[in-house]
């Protein structure tokens, strides 16, 4: 008797009791559907974050900062400047570029500012950046226009995230629907291309120490802080909808580094620099972004930078922690689905035991005409496996349909909120194959006891059964 014979026999037997078989298979389908839709949700969240990091090149990037970015560090210790002796300037940039494995390094000047565009206003931290970084992977996300073309001209590359905060909507697909709902005319609606060539006003504050002295001397008219407004021509719009935590600081408005250096500031980029003033060379850059050629070199380059006395931060290494957290989330979601599958497994046991009871005489006949215990077991294992396989395939389809519906509903709400839709669920190949294998495995385990019981049936007793 071949495996094909067993499968044919199993299908036939299940067909004979199709209502009961269908209900058992439905139980497995619900279990598998619950399991995979939950794990697909966890995987989807992980993938969204992972993809955002990968597409922005964050997996191959190390950020050098004046103070080590440590989320667990108490706030007061940020003022601890001990050990900070290397200023972030062009000299350091050259040294970093010479490290083996470093593809490129560029500094970022950052400063808080207020921006005004089309009568909308918001505050942000802008970034002065070398226009050459436009060639790197992290900035290949232009929706309209070009990247910065000059190091000295007053140009600006803005992000869609900034536009959202400025209440300017450019998503053409959703624009009409959003416009209809915007009865109070809060938003401005246009295409990204319309913004190219427009002027954005950048307001920065500068600090005059002499005026400060005047204040201290009792001069009522002295004002140590003065505002400067710089008009910038928008040359490009970047699509940065879900700005990750690493690019949040300054990615919304990029201006040429050379021009940024001409904008007066309050005199220091950070509290650390303020505290260090007078004790050494000032930082030219708020951060230095280091890109490694190969993500595998990341740890080594990071160590080299640390040896140079620099404070470094690599999100890729934080990603390990994030992955671990998602593993825990997936495990919890998986357990819920697993419980549903256990219930389905009990259903399989019940169905097979009922089947054995009804087919006791048949088992006796099979033994009388030469069926071995192994073959009898095989018949019931075959039935369990078919229940598992059909249930798993049905469960995957059911789970996929459920996630499709859930995704559509959630994205409808997200669109209403003016955000871009996201793929909430992700079905990796291991989840599909794993759930099929798992369902068959579980079904076979569920079939162990009934099959053993069927095989042990005394043929003489079974033939008398009615």
């Amino acid at each position, binding site marked *: 008797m*071949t495996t094909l014979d067993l499968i044919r026999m199993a299908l036939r037997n299940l067909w004979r009791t199709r209502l009961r078989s269908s209900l058992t298979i439905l139980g497995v389908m619900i279990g598998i559907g619950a399991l995979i839709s939950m794990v697909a949700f966890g995987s989807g969240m992980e993938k969204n974050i992972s993809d955002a990091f990968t597409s922005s090149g964050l997996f191959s990037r190390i950020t050098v900062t004046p103070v080590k970015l440590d989320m667990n560090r108490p706030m007061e210790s940020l003022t601890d400047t001990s050990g900070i002796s290397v200023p972030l300037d062009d000299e350091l940039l050259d040294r970093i570029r010479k490290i083996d494995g470093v593809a490129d390094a560029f500094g970022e000047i950052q400063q808080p500012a207020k921006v005004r565009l089309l009568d909308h206003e918001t505050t942000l931290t802008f970034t002065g950046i070398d226009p050459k970084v436009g060639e790197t992977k992290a900035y290949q996300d232009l929706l309209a226009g070009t990247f910065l073309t000059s190091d000295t001209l007053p140009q600006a590359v803005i992000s869609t995230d900034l536009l959202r905060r400025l209440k300017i909507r450019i998503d053409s697909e959703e624009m009409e629907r959003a416009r209809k709902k915007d009865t109070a005319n809060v938003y401005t609606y246009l295409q990204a291309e319309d913004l190219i060539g427009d002027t954005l006003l950048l307001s920065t504050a500068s600090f005059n120490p002499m005026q400060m002295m005047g204040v201290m001397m009792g001069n009522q008219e002295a004002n140590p802080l003065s505002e400067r407004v710089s008009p910038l021509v928008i040359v490009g719009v970047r699509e940065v909808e879900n700005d990750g935590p690493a690019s949040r600081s300054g990615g919304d408005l990029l201006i040429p580094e050379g021009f940024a250096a001409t904008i007066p500031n309050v005199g220091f980029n950070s509290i650390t620099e303020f505290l260090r003033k007078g004790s050494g060379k000032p930082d030219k850059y708020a951060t230095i972004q280091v890109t490694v050629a190969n993500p595998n070199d990341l740890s080594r380059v990071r160590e080299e930078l640390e040896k140079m006395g620099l404070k470094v931060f690599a999100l890729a290494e934080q990603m390990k922690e994030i992955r671990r957290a998602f593993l825990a989330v997936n495990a919890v979601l998986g357990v819920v689905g697993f419980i549903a599958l256990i219930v389905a497994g009990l259903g399989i046991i019940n169905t097979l035991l009922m089947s054995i009871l009804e087919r006791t005489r048949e088992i006796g006949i099979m033994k009388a005409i030469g069926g071995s*215990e192994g073959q009898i077991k095989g018949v019931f294992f075959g039935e369990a496996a078919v229940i598992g396989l059909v249930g798993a395939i049905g469960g995957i389809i059911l789970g996929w349909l459920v996630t499709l519906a859930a995704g559509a509903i959630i994205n409808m709400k997200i669109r209403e909120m003016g955000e871009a839709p996201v793929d909430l669920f992700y079905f990796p190949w291991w989840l599909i194959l794993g759930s099929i294998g798992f369902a068959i495995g579980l079904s076979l385990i569920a079939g162990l006891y009934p099959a053993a019981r069927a095989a042990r049936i005394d043929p003489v007793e079974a033939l008398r059964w009615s």
Partner: protein
Amino acid sequence: MAFIEIDHIRKIYRKATVTVPAVNDISFDIDKGEFLAIIGKSGSGKSTLLNLLGGLDTPTSGEIRFEGANLFAEGKDGLVKHRRHRVGMVFQSFQLIPGQTAAENIELALAFGGVSRSERKARALELLAQVGLAERADHYPAELSGGEAQRVAIARALANDPAILLADEPTGNLDTQNGDIVLGILQDLHRQGRTIIMITHDPDMARVAQRTIRMQDGQLLDSQLTHESLNAKAL
């Protein structure tokens, strides 16, 4: 050495404190190609003896030797091989699987016997033709008359070409006409050289056999009854 040697075979059923000796120390031989009838009243132990001969049951003590080899020496595997290749069994209530057609019932026995899928269908049709039911191949047991069902059961018993056919009251559920047809088939099989061991409670049926033995209370009363002595003894 006889073809089949039944040697001090004993089968005792124990239920709680009650002990029932269904077969109690029976010994006799069966020759190759013999048509043997076993007669006896209900509860005489004849079906238990047939089940032991068919390898469906194991004795409490004693041996049954086929061509000198003890049937029970090889354990379960040996009994499966015995049921699969050496004996074919026919029952009073036909014992066909209801969810399978006549041909499929035979094919199942062929599958257990290791016959390839491609050969099974042809062999099943051939066996059905042999019992005169070629046109009923695709009919389910419920669609067959008693006589037809029993002929299918005989065809199935012959699936793996066994040397011995064990028939337990094969005509018990049939009318006279169908009973005669079934007996005719058994006689034909005997003429072809098969050893037939048939259980019946009807002395008239036993007359088709070459030899008849009689059982009572698990023991052998007569092991050499002739047709004449069958007439003389009231059962």
